[in-house]
């Protein structure tokens, strides 16, 4: 019998990466094709640390996709001048409008296409499933249909009825935020909602995920049904404490509504001509921090963020 030599045991490669390296990987991929997609929804589970790192790495001319509800992070990317086109059904901070989104669209600096949720979800489904289009039979009567660039009218081959088709939406890069992953990139969302994250992972060329913590392999192996996105779909995983801040990462920390509101006030001031506060915000939170630790200090430090952890625990 032959003896098994140590050299015959190749090692599996970890997908754990640093935030800056992940941002450069994404930036370079997006230079080939600028379609970036963001996971989460509104103020929850948004990969904001990855977004900030991408902005700091100098990304430009982005075409943005998201789950059907986007807000703070998209507005920040617009404020930083990194966005060219948006394929987003709803852009809002929910309790108020997105100031930089508003002023950039009104001023003609960015193009915001009119879309709906089914177009985005259907386009991601077509891409994930590897089919040329996804039929949609629930769009009627809205002006959005006249402007939506991603849909076409087709005849249903079975009923003959006029329905819609959406072609594949294939993001070059998708950023996700999950609560846990192992070093191989198996993601676990512990939040109640998983949004469209699983669909986006399967629809994209390259998925880069931030997680609150990397867990031992055994945690994943002990409960494979809890894995929401298998590592097969994930290119890189980055451990970033408070990586979704100022959005929430339940059950670990709540959304920071005060921070988002203060940001929106600066955006509103910029909208009427006073950009100094907004520029200082971007410098303080995006360009100046050298690490996530620096960012945490800039937003108020661990003591401040402990409040958000407590709120998530007590909900």
């Amino acid at each position, binding site marked *: 019998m032959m003896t098994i030599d140590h050299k015959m045991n190749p090692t599996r490669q970890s997908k754990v990466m640093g935030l800056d390296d992940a941002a450069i990987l994404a930036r370079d991929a997006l230079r080939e094709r600028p379609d970036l997609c963001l996971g989460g*929804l*509104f*103020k*929850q589970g948004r990969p904001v640390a990855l977004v900030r790192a991408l902005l700091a790495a100098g990304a430009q001319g982005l075409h943005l996709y998201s*789950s*059907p*509800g986007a807000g703070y992070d998209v507005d920040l990317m617009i404020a930083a001048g990194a966005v060219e086109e948006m394929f*987003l*059904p*709803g*852009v*809002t901070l*929910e*309790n108020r*409008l*997105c100031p930089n*989104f*508003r002023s950039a*669209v*009104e001023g*003609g600096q960015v*193009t*915001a296409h*009119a*879309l*709906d*949720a*089914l177009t985005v*979800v*259907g386009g991601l*489904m077509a891409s994930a499933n590897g089919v040329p289009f996804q039929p949609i*039979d*629930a*769009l*009627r*009567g*809205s*002006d*959005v249909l006249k*402007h939506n660039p991603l849909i076409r009218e087709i005849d249903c081959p079975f009923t003959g009825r006029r329905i819609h088709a959406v072609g594949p939406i294939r993001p070059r890069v998708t950023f996700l935020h999950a609560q846990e992953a192992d070093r191989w990139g198996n993601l676990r969302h512990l*939040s*109640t*909602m*998983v*949004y*469209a*994250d*699983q*669909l986006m992972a399967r629809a994209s060329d390259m998925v880069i995920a931030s997680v609150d913590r990397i867990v031992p392999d055994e945690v994943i192996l002990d409960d494979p049904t809890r894995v929401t996105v298998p590592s097969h779909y994930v290119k890189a995983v980055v451990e970033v404490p408070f990586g979704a801040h100022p959005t*929430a990462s*339940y*059950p670990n920390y*709540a*959304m920071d509504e005060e921070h988002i509101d203060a940001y929106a006030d600066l955006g509103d001031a910029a909208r009427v001509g006073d950009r100094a506060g907004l520029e200082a915000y971007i410098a303080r939170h995006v360009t100046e921090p050298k690490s996530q630790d620096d960012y945490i200090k800039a937003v108020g430090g661990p003591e401040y963020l402990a409040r958000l952890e407590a*709120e998530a625990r007590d*909900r």
Partner: protein
Amino acid sequence: MSVAVSPLEQMVVVLARDLADAELGAAGAAALVPMAAIALAREMHAPNLTVGGEMFFNPQPGRLYPSMLDDRALGHCEAAETFIELFGHSHHGLDFFFHSGLQHDAYGNINLHHVGGTLHAPKMRGPGAANLSYSHTSTRFYICPTVHNARNFVEKVDFLTIPGHLSGPESKREAGLTNEGPRFVVTPRAVMDFDEKTLRMRLKSVHAGNTPEEVQRQTGFDLAITGEVPQTPPPTDEELAVLRQRIDTTGALRV
């Protein structure tokens, strides 16, 4: 009750009374009033009503939140879904849904995209909307903005985001809108419904403290007022007690 009924509480009660037992429905984007209405209906007369179609089933939030797409609000729920299931719900439709927007017009059409200018050169750009389909795949929907004035109630919307009754029965037929569409418009001032023949909005009742003349003055189109306009039936003591003690425990509807 010692504290006066708030306009939002009056809205909640009107909407709750119209939801039936064993129906399936969801609250929509601006969820404070709709979610309270659903919760009140479940407490009062509709214990088998299912909240679903927005990625979670039967949340038990313990208090009201402005957005229901929030883990704080739906963290305690019976089951969670994703946007993949939302695709199916949007096609199958719900029994009821709720909408509100930047502008609402005489036929119950809603604008969430822009006021003035054009889509790509707007004077004022709004948030857009995620789900357009529930307005017509659902059996019916309610329009319930928390503001009612001549600027957000206009003869014709600048951009038609959410189809209501379009421009009447013929246009609805042509567009393939086969369900009821908007049934009631419930605002802090009044309740409106739609003329059966023309599908134009008309004043149905005014809430306590409002007059038909004032409501008309705050509306940018003719509300077809003829004769006496009744007062909206106020909340009963029981409705108000349940609403304040079990649903709106933080007084979000009285701010």
